[in-house]
């Protein structure tokens, strides 16, 4: 009996630590965040979290949300959808947050967003997959790019170049696979033939067999639709296995990836994206972006390496604008006000008036040449393509 009692005691003690009374709802506006800070893709989560902190500091210095100071409640999802669900429940029921910003990994957003939607909490996701916005959750918004929107823009580059065949290489994660599928559809509609389609799983390191297979199909161009850090090693292996053609990427080829692939290998990667990354602040000539880059550099001592930082900043700015329009911090008011938001984001205009709860509806295409992202149009006009042919010795 004593043993039983002692066991019960242990359990009660355990619960005491759990059942800490929910924190009092105070004078602050509480934004819950769930990012993957540890685990597979955490580099993106960390940059995004950093940018959100920066943005919140900025907002607080400039009056907060209708006078309320913003307070962040941060959790790590360990890049796991299961954890994301646990964290979402915690944010909703225990921390009782007023709004939430979600992960870079669309899988996590897909799992956690319905909880916020059900609870009627104003929520932004930072992943770029089309999937979770298809679910029609009225409380769920995005201030990042939707990969599906980039597809027609990027596919058009093929037409501009007069290319007829393409090989597709994709990852299996939601964002990569779904985007590759949309690409394939679009290409078919445009009369471009997909001559090879290869894939890899998360955790794979060696892609040479797939590359060999794609190259033996002899395509005009190769499309890569991968997520996270795979891009760098992939491009490196593509080039080292002898592929010299243009690479079409589903999104911008970021600075972290260029480092791994090497500057030379990263030449001639074309993509459509609202924004790009920069090697140094001075490389950037967009004033608003430059200001942000400097702010980030000052705060964290390093340059932004992935575009996830941009997504974090934009998200907070859109929320802030919505609060100004609504004049209230109540969730429903914020949701309604967001549909009226039109502001300048880091990648151009964020316009929510079309009612699809997406900010970036159109954007530019770029090509990476000698470590610099050049507007694709400019590059074509200035004879870049001819220079490329001459340099690589490729025909056509």
């Amino acid at each position, binding site marked *: 009996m004593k043993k039983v009692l002692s066991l019960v005691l242990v359990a009660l003690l355990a619960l005491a630590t759990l059942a800490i009374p929910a924190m009092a709802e105070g004078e602050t506006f509480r934004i819950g965040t769930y990012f993957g800070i*540890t685990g597979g893709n955490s580099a993106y989560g960390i940059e995004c979290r950093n940018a959100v902190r920066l943005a919140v500091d900025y907002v607080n210095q400039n009056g907060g949300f209708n006078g309320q100071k913003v307070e962040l409640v941060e959790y790590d999802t360990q890049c796991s959808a299961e954890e994301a669900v646990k964290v979402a429940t915690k944010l909703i029921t225990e921390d009782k947050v007023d709004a939430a910003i979600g992960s870079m990994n669309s899988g996590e957003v897909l799992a956690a967003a319905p909880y916020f939607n059900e609870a009627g909490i104003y929520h932004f996701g930072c992943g770029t997959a089309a999937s979770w916005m298809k679910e029609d959750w009225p409380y769920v918004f995005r201030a990042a790019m939707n990969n599906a929107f980039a597809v027609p823009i990027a596919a058009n580059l093929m037409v501009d170049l007069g290319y007829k065949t393409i090989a597709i290489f994709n990852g299996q994660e939601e964002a990569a696979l779904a985007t590759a599928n949309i690409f394939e559809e679009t290409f078919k509609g445009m009369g471009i033939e997909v001559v090879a389609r290869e*894939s890899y799983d998360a955790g794979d390191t060696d892609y040479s*067999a797939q590359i060999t297979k794609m190259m033996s199909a002899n395509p005009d161009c190769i499309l890569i639709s991968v997520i996270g850090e795979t891009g760098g090693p992939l491009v490196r292996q593509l080039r*080292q296995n002898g592929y010299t053609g243009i690479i079409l990427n589903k999104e911008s080829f970021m600075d972290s990836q260029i480092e791994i692939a090497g500057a030379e290998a990263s030449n001639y990667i074309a993509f459509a994206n609202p924004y790009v990354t920069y090697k140094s602040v001075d490389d950037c000539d967009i004033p608003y972006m430059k200001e942000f880059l400097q702010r980030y550099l000052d705060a964290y001592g390093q340059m932004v390496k992935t575009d996830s930082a941009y997504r974090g900043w934009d998200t907070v700015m859109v929320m802030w604008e919505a609060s100004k329009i609504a004049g209230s911090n109540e969730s429903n008011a914020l949701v309604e006000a967001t549909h009226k938001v039109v502001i300048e984001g880091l990648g151009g205009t964020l316009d929510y008036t079309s009612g699809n709860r997406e900010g970036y509806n159109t954007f530019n295409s770029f090509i990476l040449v000698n470590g610099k992202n050049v507007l694709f149009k400019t590059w074509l006009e200035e004879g870049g393509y001819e220079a490329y042919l001459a340099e690589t010795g490729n025909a056509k």
Partner: protein
Amino acid sequence: MFLRLLISGLVLGGIYSLIALGYSLIYKASGLMSFVQGDVMTLGAYLGLTFYRILGLPFVVSLILTVLCAFAFGMLLEKGVIRVLLNKNVLPIYVVLATIAISYIIQNGVQLGWGSITQYFPSVFSKSSVKVLSVSVQPEALLCVGASLVCMVLLHFFMTRTRFGTAMRAAAMDPTAAYSCGINVSMSTGITWGLSAGLAAIAGMLIGPMYGVYALLGSMIGSKGFSGAVIGGYGNMYGAMVGGILLGLAEVFVTGYISSTYKNLIAYILLITFLFLKPTGLFNERAIQDD
């Protein structure tokens, strides 16, 4: 396409071999299974890039330093954790779990130490690709094949021609008898763990320039390495080499001629098939007891 696949298969196989060799050595010396080899490889890649890129040392010097560090790590692991557990006479599952705990520590530790973004490992060669029989390949790939061959040959000579290697083999075969012959058995198992870690670290340094360096670099290669070791005959040094290379070839040719969907499946299918149908492996190593 065949030639290109063959080369890819050899590169991949060389890496698997180095990992599988580590498994086999450890099993031979101590009858244990380590789940940490893949992550030691990751650690090796991080150490290598620290010496080579961050400190700017020459590649060969970095390689030697990395191997020494990894060797020390392996020894420490055996002395500080494995030996302690064995002295407590625990079930072998605790040793397995301890190595898994260490692999968590490495995976998370390197992220804390080097940041979670993929690290760039600069090319060892100035040319980004070379032509072999009209096929362009990464020069690192050739280095990889060459270096793993050299490692295997060196290990063979070390084990068969040196006093030390003979002592180690004796200690592995019959610890009690070896002990009574004056061989320091505890030292020799320690060295075996160190050697295995060293081999994994070499593998890490070889693939770093090709794949980039990140925390989970070694986790999949580590678990596929088991497959190589079992194919060859778990505990057999030569079996591990051959098994690893066969695994690499199988994986690449399946991807090339069937579908990349089955790329990761093939290693585990081979692993389970061999365990069930031919547990002694190609080299008929009798390590796996029948019950």
